[in-house]
């Protein structure tokens, strides 16, 4: 077990290093001169040279990378060009907002989708199954930004039940915050339920075909016992892996929902930094999301033996 954990942890190290190389390269590939961007046009060449030197841009690229990596490891991601805020606290603050939204939504979606998908598979080809599959496909086909807009139109504008604009953090005022989160969470829940229900159904179908399910029935277990003891845990494995991918993808993809509902989350920050050519912030966001993605998938991997103990010895 310890060997399994260690080997997984170790295997993440080169990935993280490569990710930082990739981000470093990406940012340097963006057309435009960062110094000119910071200082504006028509600067004194001496000021320009001093700034270049201060940022280390006059050094060879590998040296720049090492220096950059060094400051990175000490938690220094630089300062925003547009707001002069330190990047790391800014990213963390925005991340907290997005994470709230995403975690709540994905948890609710999982709780709904997994049992639904399993029941659909158990009653394969019934009307219920057809309903779940078609419903799931429809839900996953509706883009979140449109579903959000339609909710705003219906619940906000037509019925006037929920606020259309604005955001209050849960920490400030829990109930007001919850009211603002209701529609964005519902939007994400519906979309992700569509994806998860199909996955849960497919992996349950795979498990139901296996001999050990027939063996469990041959032992005299009731259908409920067979599903709970033998099918549920084994069928959840693939869904669990998918959850890791969904969480990571939502960290970037949540930008559209945040745009619709004017939530100041990490996704908005990424988009704003691209529009504002705020490279330190963009770089910080890219790095942060990629590292989070790697870490989330690592955690998913480390928990996988719960659903399938065979991977431990593999």
């Amino acid at each position: 077990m310890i060997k399994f954990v260690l080997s997984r942890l170790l295997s993440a190290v080169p990935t993280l290093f490569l990710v930082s190389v990739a981000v470093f390269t990406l940012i340097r590939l963006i057309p435009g001169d960062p110094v000119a961007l910071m200082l504006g046009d028509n600067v004194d060449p001496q000021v320009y040279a001093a700034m270049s030197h201060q940022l280390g841009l006059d050094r060879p690229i590998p040296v720049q990378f090492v220096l950059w990596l060094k400051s990175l490891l000490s938690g220094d991601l630089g300062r925003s060009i547009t707001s002069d805020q330190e990047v790391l606290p800014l990213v963390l603050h925005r991340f907290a907002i997005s994470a709230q939204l995403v975690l709540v939504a994905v948890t609710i979606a999982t709780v709904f989708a997994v049992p639904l998908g399993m029941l659909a598979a158990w009653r394969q080809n019934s009307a219920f199954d057809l309903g779940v599959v078609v419903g799931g496909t429809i839900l996953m086909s509706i883009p979140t930004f449109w579903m959000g807009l339609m909710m705003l139109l219906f619940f906000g504008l037509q019925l006037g039940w929920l606020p259309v604009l604005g955001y209050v953090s849960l920490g400030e005022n829990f109930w007001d915050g919850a009211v603002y989160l209701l529609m964005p969470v519902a939007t994400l829940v519906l979309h992700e339920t569509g994806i998860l229900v199909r996955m849960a159904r497919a992996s349950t179908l795979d498990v139901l075909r296996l001999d050990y399910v027939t063996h469990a029935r041959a032992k005299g277990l009731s259908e409920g016992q067979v599903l709970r003891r033998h099918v549920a845990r084994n069928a959840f494995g693939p869904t669990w892996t998918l959850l890791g991918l969904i969480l990571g993808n939502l960290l970037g993809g949540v930008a559209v929902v945040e745009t619709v509902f004017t939530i100041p989350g990490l996704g908005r920050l990424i988009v704003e930094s691209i529009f504002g050519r705020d490279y330190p912030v963009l770089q910080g966001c890219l790095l942060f999301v990629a590292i989070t993605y790697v870490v989330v998938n690592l955690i998913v991997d480390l928990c996988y033996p719960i659903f399938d103990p065979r991977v431990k010895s593999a």
Partner: protein
Amino acid sequence: MSETSELLRVDTLELGIAHLPEARIVRKASFEIQPGEFVGLVGESGSGKTMLGRSIIGLQPSAIVPRGGSITFRGKDLSAMSAKDLRHLRGAEIGMVFQEPMTSLNPSMTIGQQLEEPLQVHTKLSATERRGEILEIMERVGIPSPEDRLKDYPHEFSGGMRQRIMLASAMLLKPALLIADEPTTALDALVQREVLELMVELSRENGTALLLISHDLPMVARYCERIMVMCQGEIVEAGPAQTILACPQNAYTRKLLAAMPKRGPVRSFEGAETPIVEVRDLSVDYVSRSGLLARTSRKRALNRVSLSVRRGEVVALVGASGSGKTTLGRAIAHLIPTSEGEILFRGQPVSKRNSEWMDYRLNCQMIFQDPFSSLDPRFTIRRILSEALYHEKAQEVSVREDRIRQAILEVGLEEMHLDRLPHEMSGGQRQRVAIARSIISEPDFVIADEAVSALDVTVQAQVLELLADLQKKHGFSCLFISHDLGVVEQLADRVVVMRDGEIVEQGLRDTVFDVPKSDYTRALLSAIPTLRRTQTGVELSWRFDAPNVAEVTR
């Protein structure tokens, strides 16, 4: 026999396919089983034997539905029984053992949990009592230090051990009937007999009746008092084992019996010229490398093996799985890299940098085990055969066509088969095509790697006969790799026995089979029954007593 004494009665049972009202998987099956009686159900793949067995406790796939007839167990009609009542029978009164020990245990539950389930469902025992029962049965089926293994997962056991656990879970509540569907087919030859004898012993101890479903007539006949032979959904013959062996009435039964391998004639190759292929001190290491930083690990699969094959000779390579026999075959064919030693062809060392390389490549062909994967699913048979003549481009098209036609006729197929795709043919036909492909270029040396193992009994006999005929006709040398000693006995001139990547014993076939030198060979031979005709009828016997497998394989 009185009407009420029987344990199970199946009466004109018909099984069909949902949505296809006309189709029948099983037709008018009728039989009964007395308490404590051992009954065998024999048939080839697709005969409907598995579905018949499973339908007794309603565990057939949902697409297969009863279309008439009845099943009564202890006088109660099972088809009229509620799902709940049926569940009370399953596991308690009727136990079941499946073919695949690898997939029939839940990988995410410990052995202890899985063995506990029947007790939880069917008894009111306390947790400690249940534990006691489980430990007792684990001890009984021969799992060493059971207390330490309760918390282990199925993947931590070998195939044979898993099948013992399956058996334990089925026998835990001492059922009145045990249905065993090919219980040892997926196991290594060495442990097959052990597991089977354990099953028979346990059933006898508990007075359990046994329905043994298998493709292997001699094996079933060895243990069962009565046998039913099934062919294409119908029970074509049923009766006492002795009678069926001695004077089978049905043509299909006779065919099954005739398909049992028999010892072939002795041929001598003494004093022949230099061997066609010779292997000297050949070793193969498997190098595994995981991840970017992980260390590489080496595992020796073949350790300094030497053997030779003379012109026209059939040398069999036998051993249990993991013995390295397939590795040796693939190394000789240059499909995998070797780490030391050399391979000589007509006395000349073979290497990829050698000028004779192409000569060897084209003269050494291989027939694989699985005819599903050895033929490209997208190629017609004609294209598959013409591909084998890739290096004979100079030939005229008509000559080529003639050779292809000749090859397909030679393996007992017809010209019309040339335009078929592999999936449009049966397993036996596909294997014939594979044979045609390997000999069309008239090689001097053919490696047959478990070439008949995937085939049904009767088809296996035909393909084996074909292979022997072709070998005699074309005179190619053959390295025949097989785990099945019965087949080897029929075909081989000389036998090489392997274990753990090394050669244990080699010699003339009759010597090795009749007076084996090593315990390991004896153990391998003890797994196959022989059929002897006596004055009173036919007698099935073992060549040797069952050995202690743990000791031999240590």
